[in-house]
């Protein structure tokens, strides 16, 4: 079965550079979540989209933005990168319209290292 695809898997950027992370949700899933997980930390919710519209916003810095496109893939854009942005970024998708099983399916994550 198709899973959530994230690209790239690894990314190394310098401070003040820009990064774009991509997420391709499971087909027919209507909700995409972005999470940031620092070393030894729990996943922190950044932002979510339901049917291509932003549905909720968490602890996402103003330097970050995200969008979901007509084909349901999502991109997380990160500008003016700081050392503290180094983390594992997970995308997850779910089918919120089916309230009986809204479990989130996570991608493998993108490991961002800012040097």
């Amino acid at each position, binding site marked *: 079965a198709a899973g959530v695809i994230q690209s790239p898997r690894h990314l190394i950027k310098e401070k003040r550079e820009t990064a774009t992370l991509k997420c391709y949700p499971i087909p027919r899933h209507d909700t995409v*979540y972005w*999470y940031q997980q620092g070393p030894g*930390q*729990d*996943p*922190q*919710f950044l932002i*979510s989209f339901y049917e291509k519209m932003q*549905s*909720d916003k*968490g602890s996402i810095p103003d330097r970050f933005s995200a969008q979901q496109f007509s084909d349901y893939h999502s991109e997380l854009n990160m500008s003016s990168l700081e050392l503290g942005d180094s983390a594992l970024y*997970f995308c*997850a998708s779910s089918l919120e319209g089916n309230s009986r*099983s*809204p*479990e*989130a*399916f*996570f*991608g*493998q*994550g993108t490991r961002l290292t800012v040097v």
Partner: protein
Amino acid sequence: GQQVMQIPQYQHVQEGEDFTTYCNSSTTLSNIQWYKQRPGGHPVFLIQLVKSGEVKKQKRLTFQFGEAKKNSSLHITATQTTDVGTYFCAGKGGNTPLVFGKGTRLSVIA
């Protein structure tokens, strides 16, 4: 906003011992989900609890949802080395996004 607290943060057990992690939400939840994350991996869905007082079992794992739908627990009977990882609860309340607890990192000593 909604907060999900999870304890303990770490648990080291001998193989064969039992293990329990507890989760408490600051608000009433519509459902609670449990995930397992192996070192270097991504969170993998284990189960979802929806009903007040619900108890579900998966082999050696027992999941409970409190009567008030604000707390939950995961109990593993007779741990094995394959149980190693971090167990996260994640609560969802109405239209709020999935909020994760800080996780319990389980180490199993053979």
